[in-house]
């Protein structure tokens, strides 16, 4: 059985009851903080260094030959918790060089207003075709903006203007 240690609680001395030494020591602390290095990050000009594995916006990627890797199996659409992904599958022209893949998305929409950046689409994708990038700043002026941004994500580029 653990031993109970009873701490003796001394009554406060007069100096302690007057609060004044505590006020002085508190002032010392706060004043010393005034001259320390500031922790503020001047955001738009200075960007934070993102950790490895950061979950930013989901993006469709291409293979070394420039083919979009997505085969529109729709697993990501099914797994997506907020139902942000909507895929319209399409056939690949049988005459085309990449005909063996059979399917490619005709439409691949990510509603960035719904996306919760959970990364399940990246995890579930059997073709490693969708990745969460280190882009985190997505803003727009209207609901349509947010949906448009999702379309741009398909191109694999940064959807929201200034490069990071």
């Amino acid at each position, binding site marked *: 059985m653990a031993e109970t240690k009873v701490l003796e609680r001394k009554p406060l001395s007069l100096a302690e009851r007057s609060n004044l030494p505590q*006020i002085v020591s*508190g*002032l010392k*602390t*706060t*004043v010393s*903080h*005034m*001259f*320390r*290095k*500031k*922790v*503020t990050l*001047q955001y738009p000009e200075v960007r934070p260094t993102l950790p490895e594995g950061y979950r930013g916006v989901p993006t469709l990627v291409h293979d070394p030959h420039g083919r979009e890797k997505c085969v529109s199996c729709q697993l990501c659409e099914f797994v997506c918790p907020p139902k942000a992904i909507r895929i319209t599958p399409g056939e690949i022209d049988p005459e085309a060089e990449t005909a063996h893949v059979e399917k490619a998305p005709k439409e691949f929409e990510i509603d960035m207003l719904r996306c919760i950046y959970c990364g399940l689409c990246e995890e579930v994708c059997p073709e490693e075709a969708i990745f969460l990038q280190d882009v985190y700043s997505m803003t727009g002026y209207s609901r349509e903006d947010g949906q448009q941004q999702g379309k741009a994500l398909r191109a694999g580029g940064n959807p929201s203007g200034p490069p990071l």
Partner: protein
Amino acid sequence: MELVPLLLKILYAAIMLVVVLTIAGYSVLIERKVSAYQHGRIGPNRTTTPFIRPIPVIGPLLTRLGIIQLPADGLKFLFKEDFTPPYVNRPFFWAAPLIAFVPSLAVIAVIPFGQYTSPLTGEMIPLVLAPMDLGVIFVLAIGSLSVYGVVLAGWGSNSKYSFLGGIRSSAQMISYELSLGLSIFPVFLWMNAPGSDAGLSLSSVVEAQNTMWFLVTCPLSAFLFLVGIFAETNRLPFDMAESETDLVGGFHTEYSSFKFGLFFVGEYGAMAVGSALFVLLFLGGWNFLPFLANPWPAGWIGSVLSVLWFLVKVVGMITFFVLIRWTLPRYRFDQVMKLGWTVLLPLAIANLIVNAAAVAIHDLW
């Protein structure tokens, strides 16, 4: 009264008002900047205007210091919707901001802020709007009126948060007014000790501190007065009227736009006036340093220097107010009451008695 001196007086009063309001406004900036530094932040450093930014070195510096933040905040208050809730008591609701705002500014009439030494006669004249013999009494009497604004706001708002804020504020004001008033009696006892006749005006207090500040000779008075001023101006740690953690906004919960702005400026104006009073009573006013003769030359250059030195001290006091605010947590209401009645009031009375006895012994010696 002749017309020209009257107009001059009005002009001086207008200038003084503008200066004090500017100081009050910029003490908001001091508050924001100092609190930011204490938190390891930078504080307002982006607000700027098209005609300030392009100035080569000074423009970016002023922007970084947040100089334009004050007009920006002021304009923001003006352009917000002035909403009067339907359930308020309208006359009280509208009168309260004015009643809170006016007394803290009326006090500046008797506050001296510098000296003018005539180059011809060597006579020293204090610079003050209304050279009143009862200066300090006037300050105590008028300054404490602003609590009526807070109480009226609390009552007229017809909301429980405002009501509690008003009640707390009135109780706190009654408790601390006593020790505040008693704490400065010793200063005037010493000034008017037998053989000297300095009166009760604030400029004579400064003259009496020519060689030694009252902070050194009456430290307990200075301490009690400082605590009292903190309580009177509703500054933390005695922020009972507002106490935003438990009362939303306290007495000004229901106020918006310009009326809130009046409360806001009145509060900071009271802080500036309180700082000025402390400087006058205990930090030697515009006297240079203890034991050192004033280096202010005769003529207007000396006046400007003395006014600037006085302002430096006042700004230092305002900064101290801010430092204390961001260092100490707020007292609980019962602790405030207990501190006021069982500690500060007996201390103030004892201080008065001891000093009175000391004056008597000094006289007998």
